[in-house]
């Protein structure tokens, strides 16, 4: 299966106005959150590495919105969007980026390491591909404990060339662990274009490990959600893992330190014409579910919500130096 030749229009069955409103809000929130995060980095409020998710929102929202509370999520280091989509309080996510005590990891993790036990978010991982075997184990435990839970593992196209990708896919298929492998293919592993990184179409690699594997348009939130629903149905029926490759694009550099020498401005401009938020906006407008007034109100709401995250994060205290050794070991 390949990317659909023409972008779908209309609203398919099952996508209620509430769900569409939710998805539009989530995507817009993520984008504004990341734009403001970039500003905070420039202001020095956020340090270290910062990888913005702008452009890829439909992947997180379309897929993670389909998960149940008992499901697990483990992902890579461009994960602010995933954490938001999973329902983690974005104030605490922002506070983590600020390195504050109120952050998801009390300021110990940083941008690349967002965890939340309550929402079963098992990180934010910054060794490319290194979290994939862990996903197999998370799912293995759920299976052994008889839980009706799926582990969704998100990774980028850059992770596919790592050995751990192949070990993890192989084990998940051999052991029929309930894993949803979700590849966000944004075309570049840092600055390396896909064709210099992977010798085959990514979804075909998963087929070789005998699991259903599809490629979807990652700029179509509705399509991503439909594919994810289908995948989860398959996995929950006890059939083992499922693989989705979502074709997407990142508008900003790999990190804030990226001079983007490896691609042209024209390419980015061209790809932005396929913007996921714009596409959902048009589909909702076409179906009479959105008008200018509602859109403006949404934009205003998101602006306020993100501002609240920043204010909350900035008001959160610095961790006490006396807590430096907390949580190296558990007693």
């Amino acid at each position: 299966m390949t990317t659909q030749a023409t972008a779908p229009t209309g609203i398919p069955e099952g996508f209620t106005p509430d769900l569409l409103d939710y998805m539009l809000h989530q995507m817009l929130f993520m984008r504004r959150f990341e734009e403001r995060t970039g500003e905070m980095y420039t202001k020095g409020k956020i340090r270290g590495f910062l990888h913005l998710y702008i452009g890829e929102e439909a992947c997180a929202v379309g897929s993670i919105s389909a998960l149940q509370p008992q499901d697990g999520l483990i992902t890579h280091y461009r994960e602010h969007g995933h954490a938001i989509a999973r329902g983690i309080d974005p104030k605490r996510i922002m506070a983590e980026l600020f390195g504050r005590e109120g952050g998801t990891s009390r300021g110990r993790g940083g941008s690349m390491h967002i965890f939340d036990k309550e929402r079963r978010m098992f990180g934010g991982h910054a060794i490319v591909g290194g979290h994939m075997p862990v996903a197999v184990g998370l799912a293995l435990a759920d299976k052994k404990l008889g839980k009706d839970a799926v582990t969704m593992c998100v990774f980028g196209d850059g992770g596919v060339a790592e050995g751990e990708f192949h070990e993890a896919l192989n084990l998940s298929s051999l052991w029929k662990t309930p894993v949803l492998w979700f590849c966000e293919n944004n075309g570049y592993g840092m600055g390396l274009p896909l064709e210099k990184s992977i010798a085959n179409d990514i979804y075909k690699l998963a087929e070789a490990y005998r699991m259903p594997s599809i490629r979807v348009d990652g700029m179509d939130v509705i399509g991503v959600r439909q594919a994810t629903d289908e995948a989860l149905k398959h996995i929950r029926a006890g059939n083992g893992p499922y693989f989705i490759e979502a074709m997407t694009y990142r508008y900003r550099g790999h990190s804030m330190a990226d001079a983007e020498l490896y691609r042209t401005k024209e390419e980015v401009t061209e790809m932005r014409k396929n913007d996921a938020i714009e596409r959902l906006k048009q589909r909702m407008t076409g179906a009479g579910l959105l008008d200018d007034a509602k859109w403006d109100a949404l934009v205003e709401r998101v602006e306020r919500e993100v501002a609240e995250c920043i204010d909350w994060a900035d008001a959160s205290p610095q961790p006490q130096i006396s807590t430096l050794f907390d949580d190296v070991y558990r007693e």
Partner: protein
Amino acid sequence: MPELRMREALREALREEMLRDDRVFLMGEDIGAYGGSYTVTRGLLDEFGPERVIDTPIAESGVVGAGIGAAINGLRPMVEIMTINFSFVAFDQIINNASKFLYMSGGQFNVPLVLRMAAGGGSQLGATHSHSLEGLYAHFPGLKVVCPSNPADAKGLLKRAFRDENPVIFIEHSALYSLKGEVPDDADYVLEFGKARVLREGTDVTIVGYGGSVHQALRSAAMLEDQEQLSAEVIDLRTLRPLDIDTVIQSVKKTNRCVVVEDDWQFGGFAGEISAQVMERAFDWLDAPVARVSGKDVPMPYNRNLEFAALPSEEDVVEAVLAML
């Protein structure tokens, strides 16, 4: 008390922990049908079935990573890495994931994983199959490192490892698997981590070892007594992290001399750590610099004579002691 070989004592610990706790399961290369490359797990597949004794593919990184995930998500896995040499393949998982998950998550997710592996040279297995890397693993905060020297300790410490909330690197010296010793058969027999043991009391020198090197220490102490009329105190560290340095310091304050014995390479190694801590805490009691008797600074040669020369021996320890008198 029954007398068991160390491999049998380890097997008893695994079996008892599996009976005690349903969450315990085992993964590893050829640990099931084959019986384990050092036969530690022989018979456990028949007793507990393939759900709890999983024969894995040769994929150390994938399997250790799966162990980490299962540990985080409610189970108590033991992963056997056939030998410590192959743990390099899983290094990313052990270091970047197992040792840091708790800290990076701000205390939310701990990793109660037991990683067993055989170590040590002496069997002419050449440079890639003869490593002793205990000190390397002890370097990382977040890991615990256990090195038993005898069957009873092996059992008591392995049972303790399954009750720990943190990743435990459990290193078994391959030359000790057939070593016999009395082993308590009480199901509640569990040893604490971070408690060194004085195996032999003495007054002239403290000889510190762990795992396999404890036996060189004991043999050299006997030689010192027989040949030189010197009284050596021998300490078995048992765990490198947590480290019971107090027992070593207490002994050095009595003997005023210290030799550390290990199979591992000397340069940047664990004997250097012991030496530094003794210097920091007992400098005024030392009559001579702390001596290190370690594996020689070469990749392990295959040839029997060369390999013998590369490993520390009891004669090396005796020589080191005589040099400090």
